[in-house]
């Protein structure tokens, strides 16, 4: 067993990745952002995408989640092509997405936010909301409060929980630590870890590269819309070149 394998040895080996983007070009309107992008997410992993501003990290998530249609290439979920599939359908196929900003409904109560996260559940939302209240008691405490009254950290917990209402197999998280105080960032990453421990594979974009990689199994370094480096997270953290160029020395 190589050193690379050691970091992900506790993961179940799978025949095919849960989520895969192959040879994807994508962008906004006429502007191309992703250029022949290849990446994958294995079952049970946390994979972190890092890279400079404008590298196309968020675009990867938006393309994977059907908010942008891939111009070329394929996006597959458990081997099935999903490129350009409506987000409302992807949610029903077990994919969740937590946007970077505006990730709660501000004028809805906490409980209503959770209900909205579970609109596609066929078995009702009450049991799942109760489970999430057990895990994140702050949400139950403030269940009737409007989401706009929450602090940044609480809001992030709600944003996660909203996406977890559907019990997704795959969760796409866009910069969970953005705009949060350093003391809260730790809690947010702890929550990402908890969600992953419960069996959800996570593809996460993170500006806070060191912290993001430190809780991840693998990482990709994106630059100018394409993958520059791909490795086990610990190896990326130790890679002097990556460290110098992308991790601030």
């Amino acid at each position: 067993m190589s050193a690379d394998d050691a970091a992900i040895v506790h993961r179940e080996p799978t025949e095919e990745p849960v989520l895969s983007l192959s040879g994807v070009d994508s962008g906004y309107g006429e502007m191309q952002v992703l250029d022949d992008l290849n990446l994958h997410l294995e079952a049970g992993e946390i994979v972190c995408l890092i890279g400079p501003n404008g590298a196309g990290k968020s675009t990867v998530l938006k393309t994977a989640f059907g908010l942008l249609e891939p111009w070329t290439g394929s996006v597959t979920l458990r081997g099935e092509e999903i490129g350009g599939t409506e987000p409302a359908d992807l949610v029903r196929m077990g994919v969740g997405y937590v946007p970077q900003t505006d990730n709660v409904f501000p004028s809805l109560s906490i409980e209503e936010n959770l209900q909205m996260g579970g609109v596609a559940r066929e078995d009702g939302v009450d049991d799942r909301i109760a489970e999430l209240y057990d895990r994140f008691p702050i949400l139950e405490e403030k269940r009737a409060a409007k989401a706009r009254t929450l602090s940044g950290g609480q809001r992030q917990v709600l944003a996660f929980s909203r996406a977890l209402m559907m019990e997704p197999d795959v969760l796409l998280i866009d910069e969970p630590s953005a705009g949060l105080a350093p003391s809260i960032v730790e809690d947010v990453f702890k929550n990402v870890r908890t969600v992953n421990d419960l069996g959800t594979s996570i593809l996460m974009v993170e500006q806070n590269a060191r912290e993001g990689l430190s809780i991840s199994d693998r990482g990709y370094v994106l630059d100018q819309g394409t993958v520059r480096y791909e490795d086990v997270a610990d190896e990326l953290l130790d890679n002097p070149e990556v460290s110098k160029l992308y991790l601030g020395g």
Partner: protein
Amino acid sequence: MSTLQLVVNGIVYSSVIVLGSIGLSLVYSIGNFANFAHGDTMAIGAFGALVVAIGVNDYLLGPEAVVSVSPTIAAALETTVFSLPIWFFVALLVGMAAAAILVVVTEFLVYRPLDTGSIELLITSIGVALAYRALLILGFGSDPQTYGVGRSGRIDWVSESLGVAITPRDVVTVAITAILVVGLHLLLQYTTLGRKMRATADNADLARVSGIRTGEIILAMWVIGAVLAAAGGVFLGLDTLIRPRMGFEMLLLIFSAVILGGIGSVYGAMLGGFTIGMAFEMTAALPFVGTQYNAAVAFIVMIVILLVRPTGILGDDTT
């Protein structure tokens, strides 16, 4: 005219404006554009009801009736409730249905295929408004018409005890408006559809990624907005003459009600509509100001309130 009388008139007129304002606000918050065709949607409602009125008055009853109906049916049709013939309530429903169908068709034929920004949709809606009005002129001509329900007397005991003239029709207008507004409130707050509508108004992108089929929510928004606007149009036609421009002429007042209430807030639109309607009718109580300035007074009230609360009465809330 006594102040109490002006208040009563204000409440009746406010009902029409509130019914118009809600839909405009819904389209702004969920559909994300200022719909200039909304006034004409009110007119569509009035003319939808007029079709039933013409049908009953010209084809079933009256001296030159084309279809002969038995005296029992004729009597049943002419039975009055609150001084309105029973068929008028059917006409109200038909007007609401006509407006709902037309806006849904417009959504599928015009707005949805365009799939463009809010400014482009606003300009498109001006075209839609002209098309609606042209449709009415083609179908009905531009002469003023009435439902032919006759005049309604005041309710005696109210005028004797309070000295205020209220007609049974005023009661119908206000009561049905109240039922529709309360119904909308219950829908928005206590049903899944209502929560989805509020969520979509709050953040349409997040609604999509949460699994809400926002296309369906937009359709619901159109139907609800049109049904309420149509009811407003029908009541307006009861009080004034039915003309193709009747809705368009309401548009400025409705816009000011929505802006005053806080653009995009349905509850704000209700409050704004009430305020504008009251200011409009209460102008008569002002010294040195003639009632021909009633719209101007309503707009001044709007400006003054906006100076104090620039985002409108409930400007921070969506839906």
